[in-house]
């Protein structure tokens, strides 16, 4: 029952913050913060518990719950948490705190409603990371869209309306195709077994023809590939990330993209092992294309936020690579990449947001020589640029290295090409840092350095990148069983 708290706590606190926000706006900030703090504590407790537990219990879940919901349709309220879910739940709570703090001074209008939407997105994301019933999964999947739409549309920058709609339509069409596939899978399962269910565990191993399997898999893949985003379905991302308010960008890049990767690992692979294996070459090809394309596009941006947005396209390509390599190393690397990208890109967006709040532009051509004025900001940007490059010592390096290592036996060509992506990363990351902080000042800015809160947030995030960079073992151990479980399912599905 503890799992349901992950969803209800943000929901209740968010609603309370909305109501009380009418009395005092700071109350809604504090309540949103408290909700995420509670969730962070919950995941810490569960993490410690997981570390103590023996490796081979019968169930794949560390914790689970199941209650009847719509029994007539075979739908239950099923939540389950394994190491993969837990790692991402912890990430959600962590980035939730970061985004509330990052918008502490920036958001001044409709504060209560802002934090309600923020909390609702986080509730939806947590639900996605926990749902084991496919109907429930689709429910949460769509639930997180509307508040995210509001975050972009109401508190975003210049072109927010267009970006918000684009974001919504892209993700919605993917989500609905997934819904059709979910129902299709239930129908196929129902015809084979006579039982009508949406429980993902029971649906695994459903016998189906290769064509049906491929079509249903593609329905799931459409939703996840849009969210990830995979080239060429990424076009909503640069707009949405650029126009969203800082907290929105952090959540979009840090969490919503991860739901795509999570969905692939949790559902697309285990439900359709044969189709996934058949599809792997295509996915790997598109992933490599995305890595290189995202890198080149990032390099050619003038808008700093847009640059960071394109780096996401590039870095999430590594997740896709790791997922479809079907090796334990690569899959662990992909999961670690999801965590590291969440933290590092989240931090980068907070930094860029802080900069924009001060100089009211994201145009790299108008920056330059900022280091002298804001050394703390510059130092943070330097470390984050290194994270974008994937330098050793930071967790990004470990993740990308693991993916490449795991991919090598599968496809040396793809590995080499993806490695080229890392070179491009050096170019764009250094260009970003150089254009903003080095050289002579192009315009006279008179701005203050990072505030105490901003410094603290960025410091903790960067520290985490370093700690996990030298000692990634806790995360890897946590997801170990999930990884081997998924891979066992993928290879076991060979006969089907």
């Amino acid at each position, binding site marked *: 029952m503890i799992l349901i708290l992950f969803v209800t706590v943000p929901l209740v606190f968010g609603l309370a913050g909305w109501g009380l926000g009418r009395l005092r706006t700071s109350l809604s900030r504090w309540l949103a913060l408290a909700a995420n703090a509670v969730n962070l504590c919950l995941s810490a407790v569960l993490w410690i518990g997981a570390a103590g537990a023996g490796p081979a219990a019968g169930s794949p879940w560390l914790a689970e719950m199941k209650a009847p919901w719509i029994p007539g349709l075979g739908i239950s309220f099923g939540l389950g948490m394994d190491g993969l879910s837990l790692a991402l739940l912890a990430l959600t709570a962590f980035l939730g705190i970061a985004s509330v703090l990052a918008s502490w001074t920036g958001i001044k209008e409709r504060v209560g409603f802002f934090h309600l939407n923020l909390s609702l997105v986080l509730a939806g994301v947590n639900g996605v990371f926990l749902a084991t019933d496919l109907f429930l999964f689709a429910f949460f999947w769509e639930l997180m869209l509307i508040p995210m739409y509001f975050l972009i549309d109401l508190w975003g920058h210049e072109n927010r309306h267009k970006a918000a709609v684009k974001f*919504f339509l892209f993700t919605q069409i993917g989500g609905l195709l997934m819904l059709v596939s979910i129902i299709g899978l239930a129908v196929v399962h129902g015809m084979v077994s006579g039982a009508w269910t949406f429980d993902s565990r029971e649906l695994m191993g459903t016998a189906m023809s290769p064509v049906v399997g491929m079509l249903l898999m593609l329905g799931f893949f459409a939703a996840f590939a849009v969210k990830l985003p995979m080239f060429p379905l990424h076009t909503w991302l640069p707009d949405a990330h650029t126009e969203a308010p800082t907290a929105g960008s952090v959540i979009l890049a840090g969490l919503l993209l991860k739901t795509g990767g999570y969905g692939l690992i949790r559902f697309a692979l285990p439900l359709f092992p044969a189709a996934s294996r058949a599809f792997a070459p295509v996915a790997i090809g598109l992933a490599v294309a995305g890595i290189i394309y995202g890198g080149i596009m990032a390099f050619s941006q003038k808008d700093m936020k847009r640059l960071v947005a394109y780096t996401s396209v590039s870095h999430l390509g590594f997740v896709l690579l790791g997922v479809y390599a079907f090796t334990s190393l690569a899959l662990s690397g992909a999961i670690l990449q999801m965590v590291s990208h969440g933290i590092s890109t989240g931090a980068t967006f907070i930094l860029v947001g802080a900069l924009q709040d001060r100089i009211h532009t994201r145009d790299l051509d108008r920056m330059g020589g900022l280091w002298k004025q804001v050394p703390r900001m510059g130092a943070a940007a330097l470390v984050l640029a290194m994270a974008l490059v994937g330098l050793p010592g930071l967790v990004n390096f470990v993740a990308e290295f693991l993916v490449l290592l795991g991919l090598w036996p599968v496809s040396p060509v793809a590995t080499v090409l993806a490695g080229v992506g890392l070179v491009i990363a050096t170019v764009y990351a250094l260009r970003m840092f150089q254009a903003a902080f080095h050289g002579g000042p192009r315009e006279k800015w008179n701005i203050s350095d990072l505030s105490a809160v901003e410094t603290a947030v960025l410091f903790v995030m960067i520290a985490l990148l370093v700690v996990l960079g030298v000692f990634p073992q806790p995360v890897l151990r946590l997801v170990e069983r999930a990884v081997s479980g998924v891979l066992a399912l993928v290879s076991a599905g060979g006969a089907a």
Partner: protein
Amino acid sequence: MSATTVVGLLPLGVLAVAGIVVLMLAAFSRRIMPAFVATLAGLAAALACTGVAWLRVPYAAGALLSFDGFVLFGIVLIAAAAIFVAVSSWAYLAGGKDNGGEYYFLLLVATLGGCILAASSAFASFFLGLEMLSVSLYALIGWRRDRGIGTEAAIKYLILAGASSAFLLFGMALVYAATGTMDLFRLAAAATGQGILAPVGLGMMLVGIGFKLAVVPFHLWTPDIYDGAPAPVAGYIATVSKGAMVVVLARAFTPAFIGPGGTAGAAATMAGGAANGLAAGFPWVFTVIAALSMFAGNLLALREANIKRLLAYSSIAHLGYVLVAFLAGGQQALRAVAFYLVTYFVTTLGAFAVVAALSSKERDADAIGDYRGLAGRRPWIAAIFTTMLLSLAGLPLTAGFVGKFVILTAGAGAQLWALAVILAVNSTISIFYYLRVVSAMFRGPETAALAGTPGGRGSAAALASPAIPFLAALAVAVLTLAVVALGVYPSPVLAFIGTFTTGGF
């Protein structure tokens, strides 16, 4: 007449008596209140009688009417919808200082017509119910005689509905000539006949049915009539008038063309019932109509700036969704149709009730500009309207999501993959225009200045309507709770629907 028939016909009888009472009240008193109270009492009594009649299903009243669980379910929906429309009209009419007695009389007659239509089992009762509904609607649509647009809409509806009734009638005559039967449930025989008369007759009947459902290509009247009619009446047309016809369609046509297992013919095997002859073509006709309705409704709504017209287009698309479930055939389809009708009724009534509540004496709140910044001015009503629109769009936590899911399940269960994907695509398209309204409500009042043209459309000042009366607020609140409840915990309703369809949910 047996006791069963008497009890079974009570819902209709009560409605008829209530209609006469209201007419008498209207003749003796020019105040609205007595007629309003009598209407509510009559509708409530009809609902209660339906509950009693439920214990005796299935039963028939001669050759004209036959009742089963599905029909009574339809009658409950129709009567409940009429209650909400009556309440929402009360505030709306009082604002205009109209004499409302006759209005309520017409509302009751239309409701009676809808119930007869839903229960009809022969051509005669089918036509009778249809005309009672239509003729009352002519007057209701043109109720606001002070507005040119209302009169225009009434005349337009009169002409088109008259023409479509003529088609229907002639089609019935041809079917009768070919088959010698006026029984609605023996249409299958007509379809399998070899002559040319029966298929032509069926096609002409389809015109009349399609007109009432407002599906493509018989949809052209919808936006103009919704726009011209008073907001509560538009809500009534969108729900009762279409819902009654959907019940007939599901009862008479499912066994005939889509596969056995409609409520009338109880054989519960799926598909392939009347696959020979021209009957095989009819699922295709409905498939094309469903696909076209979804696309046309949603695409036409994309650039619509008038809320009532937007809801009209949206209702065209929603009937397309219903047809997807209908095409699935068998009990599965019947359950999906029944459940979707509930969600559609609740949501559409809610949306129109909000429009009615926001309307002022001079004009309806139909310009998108009227809604700009509504969240700041009236947060509750904005939240409610948002809920309704998101439910129409089919997003989670609202009834629309579960409804969409149930329809997709029915469609997928019958292997209608193409329609399921078209539905998903259309659902996405539809979100675009619903979101436009939603985000207008939550944006700042930046356009209040723009809307300042005195008295003109888009004037924010014109919408400073008096506070929403308690009853209307209560009705809207009930509908909102229903939308959320159906979206979060639909099991009770699904289980209830399962009690009168074999197989159960």
